[in-house]
């Protein structure tokens, strides 16, 4: 598993946090963002463990405990459809279906051009515009099929 360019950036990111073991979560968040594919490659986790001088198991524990960390490559943009109760009762299933149709993939899948991953999420506080979705860090709500197509087009053009 050698050769991911990301592995060379691990040291730089860790230095930003003064090599502190306590900042492990922040380091992994930065690394995942830097990956461009929203995940933590195994060789990077190994590198983090070696530079921070922490047992590999401890780093893996954190990298798998938190739901925002992915251990498999995702699309450049991760579309998360909230499925918690406030969005559920206002029709999150319909929104999920609309995205499945618009992107021609099923929940949990990634488009063949690696642009979008579609998945469910727990509540992220977009309840005022429910059913809500989040694309990477940005929340969108009050969705219609037309608006969904517009959003997807906008991200494709980015």
């Amino acid at each position, binding site marked *: 598993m050698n050769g991911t360019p990301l592995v060379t950036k691990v040291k730089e990111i860790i230095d930003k946090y003064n090599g*502190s*073991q*306590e*900042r*492990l*979560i*922040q380091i*992994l*968040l930065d690394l995942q963002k830097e990956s461009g594919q929203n995940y933590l490659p195994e060789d990077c986790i190994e590198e983090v463990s070696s530079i921070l001088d922490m047992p590999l198991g*401890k780093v893996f*524990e*954190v990298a798998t*405990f*938190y*739901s*925002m*960390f992915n251990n498999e490559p995702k699309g450049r943009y991760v579309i998360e459809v909230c*499925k*918690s*109760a*406030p969005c*559920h*009762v*206002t029709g999150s299933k319909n929104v999920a279906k609309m995205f499945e149709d618009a992107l021609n993939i099923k929940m949990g899948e990634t488009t063949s051009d690696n642009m979008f991953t579609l998945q469910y999420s*727990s*509540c*992220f*506080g*977009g*309840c*005022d*515009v*429910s059913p809500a979705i*989040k694309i990477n*860090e*940005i*929340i969108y709500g009050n969705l219609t099929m037309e608006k969904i197509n517009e959003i997807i087009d906008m991200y494709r053009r980015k």
Partner: protein
Amino acid sequence: MAKIVKLISKNCGKIIPGSVEDYVKAGGYKGLKKAMKMDPKEIIEEVKKSGLMGRGGAGYPTGKKWEQAYANSRKPEYVVCNGDEGEPGTYKDRLILSQDPLRLIEGMTIAAYVFNIKEGYIYVRGEYLDLQETINSAIKNAEEANYLGENILGSDFSFHINVVWGAGAYVCGENTALLESIEGKSGRPRKKPPFLTLVGLHQAPTLLQNVETYSNISYIVEHGGEEYHSYGTEYSGGTKLVCLSGNIAKKGVYEIPFGTPIREIIYEIGGGIPGGRNLKFVQLGGSSGACFKDEKLDTPMCYKALQDNGLKLGSGALLVIDDSNCVIDFLKCITEFFIHESCGKCTPCREGNTRLLELLDKFSKGKAEKEDIDRLCEISGLMKRASFCGLGQAATTALADCIKYMKDEFLEHVDGHCRAGVCSMSGKEER
């Protein structure tokens, strides 16, 4: 007529978030300036008089917590803010963090002054990473204006705030799990006691409160505890940020004085239920909160009145569910949430939620028998008694209430009928 009172949300949408100039112009930092001329014990006395209770969900009296921490031989060494609001339907801390972060920072600074604490942490859920810039700039601006950092306002008092981001874990809203997460570990709750005011972050005494709790402090110090208290009721001082979500016309966060009946909040402030639908039930306090029907809607929002009616304010999330929804389908959604969020440390929570979902699934497929209702109650009772932390203990609150108030619908599902037409009943023929 229900009214909105803006004590802590008055700047929201009115000022540039994190701008010290704007914040001060709007009356900010008067609380801190006044506090720094007061004796710490006087400040604690005002907080006690205010009747402020922890706004994260547990509702422990803030003044009492401060008094106890102050009386300990080793005083708190860290001020920590819980900004991990993960209860579905709760987005009030997001309002403060995104619209008026300096109010939180001022509140934490006053708390730090009381205990002469040098270091503070704001822990924010990773789902709010879009607010990173706003929060960081607020801290930087406060430091530059000498309201934060070394020798605050020319005094001997120095206080620094670090921001730590979570990475998606509902359980980190539990205070001890949150500290584990600040320490860079996975967020599994610690055993209590010892309580945090004795053994907290880095094993040192720690003062930990919710975003909304700290955000009330500057108002209380500036105007006095009594004035703050007078907005609310005898048992619940001041105001509360409530979050309206679900099948309601005007979803949003509203600051209401304690004592406002839930019915007024839903129908007057929230504009009622849209689409000509009727109210089915309400869930208060997030997915771990109680469910109730119309009969209890006249209960005033007040810790005591709610408690007398078997309810808990929790985070202040008010989820409205209309009659297009099925109670079994709703409970499946809640249970799936807890399966996803259980940290896996203890068996009752880890296994219990999974078994509950299996049983609920039988109801939705028309394969359940009457005895399955008893099985749901049995598992739910066990989880409540035997789970290690509040997550597992409260995970079945909604289930227990729904069986209590809507047992007829469970029985209908046993007979193969879903009145809302939501459940598939696909296994009905197999029986």
